């Protein structure tokens, strides 16, 4: 069995071997946070993602994007939709009323005929 100081030394050596190279730099970087250069690199990396002719593509796309409807356009569309709906309701309602009237008239005619028959019998 090794004497105790040896054991301590072995422990320390083992622990030291767990640290990868550049440990101090990494600690300092973590403590200070990202540097201005890292941010610059990040932004530069984003900038190189744009393909050549970007501005032309944007201008072409902007020309082809349909225009945003104005308030007046939206109002006219809403009023038109409301008018069509109201007309449809009116037509359906009058059609239903007409059918109902015809049915009522037929019923009354039937009642009147029955009443006439009863009167004739008396």
């Amino acid at each position, binding site marked *: 069995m090794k004497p105790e100081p040896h054991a301590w030394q072995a422990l320390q050596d083992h622990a030291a071997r767990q640290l990868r190279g550049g440990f101090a730099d990494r600690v300092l970087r973590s403590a200070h946070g990202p540097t201005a250069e890292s941010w610059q690199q990040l*932004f530069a*990396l984003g900038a190189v993602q744009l393909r050549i002719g970007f501005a032309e593509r944007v201008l072409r796309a902007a020309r082809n994007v349909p225009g945003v409807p104005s308030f007046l356009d939206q109002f006219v569309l809403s009023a038109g939709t409301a008018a069509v709906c109201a007309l449809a309701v009116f037509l359906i309602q009058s059609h239903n009323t007409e059918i109902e009237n015809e049915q009522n008239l037929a019923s009354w005619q039937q009642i009147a005929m029955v009443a006439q028959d009863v009167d004739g019998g008396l």
Partner: protein
Amino acid sequence: MESTAANALADLVRRAQKGDEAAQRELIVSYQHRVAGFVYAMTGRSDYVEDLSQQVFIKMIRALDRLQAPAQFESWLFRLARNTCIDQLRRQKLRRIFLPFGEEHENIPEPAGAVDTEELDALRHALAQLRPQDRALLALVQEGRSHAEIGEILSTSVAAVKARLHRAREHLREHYQPHHET
């Protein structure tokens, strides 16, 4: 010197507002790299950069006539960029809820060589851990926006910007571990 540049920019914006396509093109060319960098910092995805930057500039062209103060063009443009990115990240989150795809389908790894340094990789990793609002805050500062401008962009006070920025920086530092092991 600075005011000359500011005047030239305001002039360019005014011309673009009147529909001068050459001026619009000049604005896009002048800001495309900065907007692309901002979009990349916000999303961490190379494949989003072109599409989102294009969306930002299309919005810019369509809404330019509503910009009242041409001198505030830069703040206004970066507000558009921030909102476009946050909308995209929100849509992506919703898609993840409703579509039966795993996260691995959304987070396609960057192609080899795209991320070439340990610090950059660590920064991207740390940013990905933050809320999009905090990411936007830090990216806006890096973009050179002042606290007052950021306050205007976020519709909040300078004091609130400072407090949120402090918290965001703390969070970033917590997650910033070069050579992180996940």
